[in-house]
């Protein structure tokens, strides 16, 4: 490891002082200086120097180094959400670039530490990733790289089927899960998830229909009742008033005590409720469902859980892309222009800064959108342009000169960076004025002229389009609907249709990978032009069913 050069260290302390003065709050930051090859390498691994082996990292590296060689792209900076934060600097950058990057990094680190959506991320991810790497390498040594890699491919194909709100939800059955010993994972070195909802995974091949009774097994029913119920067929089960023991009238109260029957009835009712559906409610975390219930063997489970964990680690970064970059850009520009910039560096700074904020007409630049929104919020709260009176004011001149001199802006943006993610950030703070000032428009593909055409400049349309592109990272919402579909242990997923259809080619290919994990036939239910459509794959053949 090269020693961190003294001039850079001086810059670091300087910037750090400014960051402290502005009230940024961050984990310790460790800067490392890398040449472009190393930086591309680290970037290919998503910022982590030690990860599991997979070809896609090689592809990413090939792409990065190629575009770097052609001068098409250059990574200035990388920062890892970890405690301490790791940030990488490009060796050949000049001093002013390093300054900007450092100021930018302080913004990011403050965001990582304080934004609510990052609260549940693993702050020792550096170690965790390396552990995943070691574990998967060990599996590869034992079972062969090709097999492991092919399996990783399948897992990655569905890595986005997670529930990004899950870390924040405390469900009732979480406790139940933890209370059931013996149904835990066999593996001891399984971090992340404690407790698998069902013990069925242990046996390798198994009849999936057995799953159906699992969720209801929580109560620990006594053997005799189980036995009795096994003899009832479905119709009888739906009758919650089972026949009482025969007895003389005056003895009935003693032979069939009413409390007992009430209790018994309740149990059956509960059981039926549970049986009706499995999972009881549609489950968004498809990966967890597969981990819990798919017949995976030890190493497959291990790999899938590692990939799920990494997906959860990266999810908040996807959820807060605009805010995170906007916040960092806000701080690098504030620190640079108010404090750190020397006159001689102005042109280089402006060049770099405009490069960061520049963009194309057809793609909103998250840096630009984010920073402009933060500035807008700061200005509005400084001038008191919020609340009922301002919003109901229809005098344009009055609105334009509205200034209550509240100076609440700084405080407000710190609050926003703490509680928002991109969706409610846009939803709450994107105003009509902002939309017009920045000339935002919505465009769509025109099938007639075969080109993308501006379709609207209306505030509502634009906002809706941005929000829908952010919802679930712009990916379809997919749930596990039924783990015992047709009562044959088949898996039914459902796509919550909100106006956009699934890409059929991709859907079929993805089903193949899920089927490999689930072993039984899998289906996904969606809509196509207001008709119900089910894609199915049974391990050999694809079929589509329209209703």
């Amino acid at each position, binding site marked *: 490891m090269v020693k961190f050069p003294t001039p850079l260290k001086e810059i670091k302390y300087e910037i750090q002082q400014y960051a402290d003065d502005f009230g940024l709050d961050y984990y310790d930051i460790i800067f490392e200086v890398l040449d472009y090859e190393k930086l591309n390498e680290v970037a290919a691994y998503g910022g982590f120097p030690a990860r599991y*082996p997979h070809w896609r990292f090689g592809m990413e590296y090939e792409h990065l180094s*190629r575009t770097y060689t052609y001068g098409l792209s250059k990574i200035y900076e990388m920062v890892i959400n970890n405690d301490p934060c790791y940030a990488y600097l490009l060796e050949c950058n000049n001093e002013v670039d390093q300054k900007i990057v450092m100021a930018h990094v302080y913004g990011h680190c403050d965001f990582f530490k304080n934004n609510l959506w990052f609260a549940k991320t693993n702050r020792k991810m550096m170690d965790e990733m390396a552990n995943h790497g070691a574990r998967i390498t060990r599996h590869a040594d034992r079972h062969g790289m090709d097999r492991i890699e092919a399996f990783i491919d399948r897992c990655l194909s569905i890595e986005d089927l997670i529930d990004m709100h899950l870390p924040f939800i405390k469900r009732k059955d979480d406790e139940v899960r933890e209370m059931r010993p013996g149904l835990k994972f066999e593996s001891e070195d399984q971090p992340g998830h404690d407790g698998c909802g069902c013990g069925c995974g242990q046996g390798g091949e198994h009849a999936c229909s057995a799953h159906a009774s699992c969720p209801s097994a929580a109560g620990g029913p006594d053997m005799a009742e189980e036995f009795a119920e096994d003899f009832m067929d479905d119709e009888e089960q739906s009758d919650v008033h089972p026949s009482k023991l025969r007895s003389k009238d005056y003895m009935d109260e003693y032979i069939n005590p009413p409390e007992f029957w009430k209790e018994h009835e309740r149990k059956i009712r509960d059981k039926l409720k549970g049986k009706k559906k499995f999972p009881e409610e549609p489950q968004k975390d498809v990966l967890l469902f597969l981990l819990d219930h798919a017949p995976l063997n030890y190493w497959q489970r291990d790999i899938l859980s590692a990939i799920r964990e990494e997906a959860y680690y990266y999810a908040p970064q996807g959820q807060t892309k605009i805010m995170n970059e906007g916040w960092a850009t806000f701080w690098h520009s504030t620190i640079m222009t108010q404090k750190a910039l020397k006159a001689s560096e102005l042109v280089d700074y402006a060049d770099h800064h405009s490069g960061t904020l520049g963009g194309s*007409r057809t793609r909103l630049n998250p840096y630009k959108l984010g920073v402009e929104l933060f500035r807008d919020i700061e200005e509005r709260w400084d001038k008191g342009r919020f609340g009922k009176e301002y919003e109901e004011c229809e005098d344009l001149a009055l609105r334009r000169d509205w200034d209550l001199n509240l100076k609440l802006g700084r405080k407000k943006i710190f609050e926003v960076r703490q509680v928002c993610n991109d969706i409610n950030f846009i939803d709450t703070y994107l105003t009509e004025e902002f939309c017009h000032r920045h000339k935002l428009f919505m465009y769509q593909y025109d099938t007639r002229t075969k*080109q993308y055409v501006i379709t609207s400049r209306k505030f509502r349309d634009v906002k809706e*389009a941005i929000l829908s*592109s952010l919802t679930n990272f712009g990916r379809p919402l997919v749930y596990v609907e039924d783990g015992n579909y047709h009562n044959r242990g088949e898996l039914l997923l459902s796509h919550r249709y909100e106006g*956009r259809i699934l890409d059929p080619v991709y859907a079929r290919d*993805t089903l193949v990978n899920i089927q490999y994990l689930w072993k039984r036939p899998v289906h996904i239910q969606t809509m196509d032009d207001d008709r119900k459509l089910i894609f199915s794959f049974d391990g050999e053949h694809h079929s589509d069913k329209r209703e």
Partner: protein
Amino acid sequence: MAETIERDKSRFKKIVRGKIKSNLKKYISHGELIGRKGKDLVSIPVPQLELPHFKFGKKGYTGVGQGDGEPGQPVSIDPDGDQPGQAGDQPGEHLLEVEFTLEELAQILGEELELPRIEPKGKKNISAEKDKYTGISMTGPESLRHFKRTFKQALKRQLMTGDYNYLDPTIIPVKEDKRYMSWKSTLNPESNAVIIFMMDVSGSMGDTQKEIVRITSFWIDTWLRSQYNGIETRYIIHDAAAREVDRETFFHTKESGGTRISSALEVCADLMDQHYPPQEWNIYPFHFSDGDNFSDDNDKAVSVLREKILPHVNSFSYGEVYGLYGVGMFKKILQERCPEETNLLVADIRNKDAIMDAIKVFLGKGL
């Protein structure tokens, strides 16, 4: 760290190699590789490999942009070809260029078409001896003394024995200090090979036909190069008369007029006579034509081929490219009149898709 990225990179390359192999037909018939040929590297554009996931179809996509323009106006696509995509959450579908050496490419071709390795004829026992200085030895002629190593050794010795005086740093090597360069001889089996490409450039051969010839000859060239150490290429064009030309002219000449195949074969035979004695050379003539030969020329062509060319060459390949006005008779004539010649290979090249099959015919015997 460096090893891990190398490992992942090589795994990626292996996958790409597999992809190219399975799509070889596409790559061959598109001919897009040829334009990207460097000195000895070919970069092959492959789409970034993507793992499937559930995603939205194109229909109903709405994007948000920024800038001037009224509703109804088309959004200009960026000059760098960036298509509008999702708001920054997905990497665009970039083309990735993966570099392969021509050797690797030939290997892929060989594996996919199951081409046999060629056994060079005649001169396989003749091998050139090549000397290479590879090491250091204690003995040797003075002319090969390694000056620096000798003095280094002397210095070491003097330091050890305490003879070295830094005020008067004189170093005197004695016999034991002397080091000499030593060499190793390697035997390089050498075989000479020449490819002679002949093409009909008469009026009926259009640009499409030439493109086919160009692609076919690129692959033939690549394969044969991987089989022989040194290889020469000669080009002959003909209509009613033939002449030898350079590569550039070969692919870009358009003439009109009739077709006299014998003229090209004569030139080819002369060339072999003058430069490539068959006992020392492996000779591979390839002839491409639409087969629309003057009918009075057929006899002559066949006799030149049988007497002057076929006995001396490893194989003679004739590719009949379907021309602007259909296809002539020459292939049929060859097949009828020379059924017993095993080193005469003929193939139809109807269109670009047929190139692969033709290559298989030409090179599949390993002659």
